[in-house]
């Protein structure tokens, strides 16, 4: 069932151009990524579906990575090496390719993939000084960021790593080789950190899940799933309400996973959130990115749920690894690069009908209660503190 529904990605590819054109006519600011990229980027992402969304889809099993690969190959107008028209294409190495390879590993976060990709850049680098290496890395990271401007954790991961490299080079390691090896080592470790962060978040949140509570979750977040899994393993008695997570039905996935763990679970359509909110004790959501204000950017519908929960005085907990902290400050929903995704309506939609295809929204911090991160349990106000400390 899920597989079949995934075919829309291909279908939409074919239909995408007209739709995106209407988009750009109606609202010039958020043009479809494909258009924007082609115009502005030396290394355009030919795929009109945001890479961010693809990753999500891949990780959530709607489309397996292999399937996605095929789909991409089929859709791609440009052969693979077109990617490597980036500045460092002098070598037969493309950071994007590297990134894509890493990205398709399930269970590997996008930020980690980015850092791994950057590490590969270092490895392949022929630079002899820290300065050169830095410049090279900077280019690679810019390329990577430009390749998918919609992915926040990619951006955050690149920034974080770059920051680290800068600090390392500025710090005590005059010796280029030791510095390089140190940086590489960190990059390798980073994947571990990512997994460990999830564990840690799960541990931290256990205190907050009490027996008999009802938890509302939205979409499929690996961290949230880890939390619930841990709670179930700890023999906590709780009930989960899963939103459906239209259009990619990630909530259904989560519900199924939870049912496998014998957690009582109830599936809601996305619009039933307010209806069910009074029986909910807390809301758990993941995050694609945690922005400077302490707000989060997450799957479409999170804002809505947070608003409802806030209105009914229910706590909203965000589970997010700290590498998702990004130096962004969206003021409103339209203030961020829209990550577009195809939406499958059961009834045919005429091309004249404009479709809101953004895949995520921004939830301001005042609607969030606490953030569970690997840095500990934080109030939204801490995010800015951490970011300031890091980038000061």
């Amino acid at each position: 069932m899920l597989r079949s529904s995934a075919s829309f990605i291909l279908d939409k590819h074919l239909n995408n151009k007209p739709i995106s054109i209407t988009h750009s006519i109606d609202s010039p600011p958020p043009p479809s990524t494909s258009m924007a990229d082609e115009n502005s980027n030396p290394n355009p992402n030919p795929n009109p579906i945001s890479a961010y969304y693809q990753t999500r889809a891949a990780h959530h099993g709607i489309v397996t990575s292999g399937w996605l690969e095929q789909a991409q190959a089929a859709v791609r107008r440009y052969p693979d090496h077109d990617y490597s028209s980036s500045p460092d294409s002098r070598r037969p190495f493309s950071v994007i390719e590297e990134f894509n390879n890493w990205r398709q590993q399930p269970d590997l976060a996008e930020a980690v993939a980015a850092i791994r990709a950057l590490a590969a850049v270092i490895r392949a680098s022929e630079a002899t000084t820290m300065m050169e290496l830095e410049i090279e890395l900077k280019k690679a990271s810019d390329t990577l960021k430009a390749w998918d401007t919609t992915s926040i954790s990619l951006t955050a991961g690149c920034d974080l790593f770059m920051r680290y490299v800068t600090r390392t080079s500025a710090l005590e390691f005059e010796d280029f080789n030791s510095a390089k090896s140190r940086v590489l080592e960190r990059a390798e470790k980073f994947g571990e950190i990512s997994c460990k962060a999830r564990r840690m978040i799960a541990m931290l949140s256990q205190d907050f899940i009490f027996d008999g509570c009802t938890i509302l979750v939205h979409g499929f977040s690996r961290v949230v799933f880890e939390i619930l899994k841990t709670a179930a393993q700890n023999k906590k008695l709780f009930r989960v309400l899963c939103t459906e997570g239209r259009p990619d039905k990630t909530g259904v996935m989560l519900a199924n996973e939870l049912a496998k763990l014998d957690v009582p679970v109830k599936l809601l359509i996305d619009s039933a959130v307010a209806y069910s909110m009074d029986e909910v004790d807390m809301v758990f959501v993941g995050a694609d990115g945690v922005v400077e204000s302490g707000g989060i950017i997450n799957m479409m519908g999170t804002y809505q749920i947070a608003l409802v929960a806030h209105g009914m005085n229910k706590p909203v907990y965000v589970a997010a690894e700290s590498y998702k902290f990004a130096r962004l400050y969206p003021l409103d929903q339209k203030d961020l690069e829209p990550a577009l995704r195809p939406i499958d309506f059961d009834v045919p939609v005429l091309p004249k009908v404009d479709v809101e295809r953004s895949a995520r929204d921004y939830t301001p911090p005042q609607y969030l209660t606490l953030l569970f991160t690997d840095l500990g349990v934080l109030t939204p106000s801490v995010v800015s503190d951490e970011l300031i400390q890091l980038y000061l």
Partner: protein
Amino acid sequence: MPDVQSMVVEFVNKLRKRKIEGSQATAKYTVELLRSVISQHRVPHANQAAALIDAVKAVGEQLVAANPVELAVGNVVRRVLHIIREEDLSLTTAAMAGLDLLDASDDDDEDNCKGIGYPAMSAAVVAAARSTLRPPSLQTLLEGTPESATVPYTSSSGADSESKSKSADKSSITRKLKHDVIEGVNQLIHEIAGCHEQIAEQAIEHIHQNEVILTLGSSRTVLEFLCAAKEKKRSFRVFVAEGAPRYQGHLLAKELVARGLQTTVITDSAVFAMISRVNMVIIGAHAVMANGGVIGPVGVNMAALAAQKHAVPFVVLAGSHKLCPLYPHNPEVLLNELRSPSELLDFGEFSDCLDFGAGSGSPLLQVVNPTFDYVPPNLVSLFITDTGGHNPSYMYRLIADYYSADDLVM
């Protein structure tokens, strides 16, 4: 050692029987007890900081278990642990610097033991150790020695102990550490004792002429705060909610009157009615949680909600020993204490209906008499601590300054 043990037992009993009232008194007892624990603890030559920490932790666990809702105990224990760690760290750095510059023999010693150059290592170790004193941050995520990130504490303590155990003048350093720690603990005692004055000093900035202030419960901090403003010739009026069924408000009112303040006692139920004529609500906290939430005397949430409704500033006074590094979950229930029903209903009157667990088949009558109330951070306008005024959203930072990340979970 035995007398320390007996002191601990005595204190634990007191805590258990709730013989000690008020977080300040508890904090003071606790820190004094810990001081004697430290001073009487025979420190082994090796790894003394860790030994001290273990000793304090052991006692602290007992104390916390004796009365888990008296968060001040845990706070003070953590503060003492933090002091030990900091003193240890500063000693280590000082020693290393000293070793580095002056004592060649020691340097050799170190060099022999450690494979790599000491100067480079020292910086790394210190950085790592410092990082453990702070909660993890984005910086530490990528920075520092890899081991320190994965197993934060062991690296520093290991390095420290090693360096110390190898140091030539072991006994002097040992004594030094203990001395410094006790010095630090004394400072803490001093701080706890003086927190009222520190807070009261700020009263003048917050209370103006002809103000009407509402307060709840009986808090010495509040008393001193109001009196400090009174001494500065500000004339204002105080409404005190009586705080049934413990009537602490009456006690506070009498003390205020004794100090010449215009005081009016109101029933707890009249809080909402009166709040529209109140300029400021000032309460003393039982504990302040890391998210800026407040545990206060029962009924305080009601006052906070009413204050919010009427846009009346809700000010919380809290000595730094009340800052608790924990995030509350379900605090109304978990961080609460239900007291005897006899405070609400006369014995005998309803005894036939009360459930004594006998399952007599008579209808159940439960009597709920909670001690504390939790105020979520969004209802708090301002915290006034001995370090100044703070927003609820900034409390996490104060807490990070006072406690070591490793001690959060005891």
